């Protein structure tokens, strides 16, 4: 089963290596990993897509929590927003094909960000299933390059990932 996990971390040198290293050495399967800064200074946020049963997911969360620089881990089991951005370069043989791929792109609400004589780059945002479907739809025309950011996610509503209040040890 696929799980989207968000991890709030201290933005220290090597923290990404720590998270990635832990996942590799514990033998967890990850589909993607995306990282970026947050609005708060010193804090970054990582989105992981992990596959495995509930026991695996529990271990992923617990093991991540053992890292000193990991502040909070959440599995987005609750209603959440998931998005991934992809750049897809499709090869274009002729005018007819050009029209076809444009139609498909429109159906997916993909934007054209680069047009050349023999290729088009599309920019697409959506959940990973949508990105997968778009790529499959373009495959018959000839995929030249695909770059995906990996899924990022956020809980809907008021639930937020934040630094826990200090409590006495």
């Amino acid at each position, binding site marked *: 089963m696929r799980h989207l996990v968000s991890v709030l971390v201290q933005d*220290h040198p090597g923290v990404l*290596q*720590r998270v990635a290293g*832990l996942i590799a050495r514990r033998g967890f399967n990850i589909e993607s990993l995306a990282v970026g800064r947050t609005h708060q200074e010193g804090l970054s946020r990582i989105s992981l897509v992990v596959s495995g049963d509930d026991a695996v997911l529990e271990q992923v969360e617990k093991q991540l929590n*053992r890292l*000193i620089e990991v502040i*909070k881990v959440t599995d987005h089991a609750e209603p959440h927003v998931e998005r991934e951005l992809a750049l897809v370069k499709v090869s274009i043989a002729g005018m007819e094909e050009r029209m076809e791929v444009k139609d498909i792109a429109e159906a997916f609400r993909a934007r054209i960000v680069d047009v050349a004589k023999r290729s088009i780059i599309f920019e697409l945002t959506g959940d990973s299933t949508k990105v997968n479907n778009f790529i499959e739809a373009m495959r018959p025309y000839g995929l030249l390059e695909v770059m995906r950011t990996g899924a990022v996610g956020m809980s809907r509503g008021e639930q937020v990932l934040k630094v826990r209040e*200090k*409590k006495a*040890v």
Partner: protein
Amino acid sequence: MNGAKAILKALEMQGVEIIFGHPGGTIMPTYDALYDSPIRHVLVRHEQGGIHAATGYARASGRVGVVMATSGPGALNLVTGLQDALMDSTPVVAITGNVPQHLIGTDAFQEADVVGITQPVTKHNMQVRNVNDIPRAIAEAFYIASTGRPGPVLLDFPKDVQLAEFTGSFDVEIDLPGYKPTYKGHPRQIERALEALNRAERPVLMIGGGAQHASAEVTELALKTGLPVIPTLMGLGAFPGTHPQCLGMPGMHGSVAANRAIQYADTILAIGLRFDDRVTGKISRFAPNAHTVIHVDIDPAEIGKLVKTSIPVVGDAKWVAAELVKGAKRLNLGKWWAQLEEWKTKYPFTWKPKPYLQSQEVIQAFWEATGGRAVVTAGVGQHQMFTAQFFKFDRPRTWINSGGLGTMGVGLPFAIGAALARPDELVIDFDGDGSFQMTLQELATLKKLNLNVKIVILNNGFLGMVRQWQDLFHARRYSEVYLADSNPDFAKLAEAYGIPGFTLTDKGRLQETVKEVLAQPGPVLLEARVHHEEGVFPMIPSGGAAEDMIIENPREAVAGD
């Protein structure tokens, strides 16, 4: 004041009294500052000896062990010891030098990515890049190493940081928003645990290394409830080994009573242990009748990792055990105990006496001669298992061995660290001829410190445990385990270092030799030449379960001995 002096001052503020270490190029500023420091430095002969000694010190005292090394090869020699301390949850702080920051990443002389390399083998590590961060980094390192589930922390100091002028403050606050260990177990889970115990017909109390500091509380719990106690290899001594309620250790070379008790138990209360595969055997067949597993551990990641847990209690063993004592009642376990007594009586740890000298009797003789009043270390292998079986540990922090990693060669440096931590105690290192040769250079350290350490090498001329597996599972094809043709004369080797050396070959001289060794002040080495055919039994083959236990040596059964 420069960074190096600030490092030592910060260490002093943490109450550090001893540093084990070895100098070298990039840590020289700190060694220079050490020249004027009240902190005692123990010069080891190899950094691996240093980290194992720091680990032995920590395990014997409950305090943080400190080791110091230079960059590159010095720091990399700590790797095995860091993983050893990590797996056996030992608080150690390692201080390493590194090349100056302007050279980092240029393949400079004695440069290595020590923070990268040691990341998986430490609880936490970091490079301190700003001289004024030194006090906070050191305070956090000690806090992380010694709290929650203890473990090793490495701090890497580039040389320019050690040399820079320190203008910061030593009045620092620890701010670790991602690190908040839970000490107090959840009251509802503790209540559920007590209810489960009261309902149980065949309960057992298993205790591990995480119960060493909670020895008084778990002992009280056992005495109040009448629970049978099964200390794991790491838990030995946390409950008195000679007490009638102690069933001995479980697992691969555990007692029949302990393994059968787990096999038939309906309820397991496990405190401060992590269900290592050497304890459980094949996990799917572990404790098949236990409908209730209560797991108390300070590390939430250990709960449910391997064994399905019905009542998880995240918390400190000491705190949780004390709470359990408050609510515990005397349990009515008459029928269960009758069964346990039968197994205990029928299958004690034992050996068949032979005409030649045997490891088991050597260990037993030392146990009897000392009345068990000793801190004991071991290397890894048959001698380690024999010691765990035949030296009955009655006090916590008196059995220091490498449980999780199984690091050969820890015996001597562990003993040095333990002797420094507890100068009033006799320390015995039961070692193997294979294990001992992995770190024997520390004989020099031992001689220099003149510590009360008795090294007992149980020399069977082989890598005995590997040989035992080859004997049982590899059709007696003894591939690369023979040492006797090139072993040194161990007594002479000791003498070369100025340490009195004894050799024992004759079974008849065992008792007097033990007396002689113990009567000698300071360090002594005894080589006991034992027979190579001895095996460690009982044994649950790797990947097996309690019911697959081989109780007696099958070779002896075949020989009709």
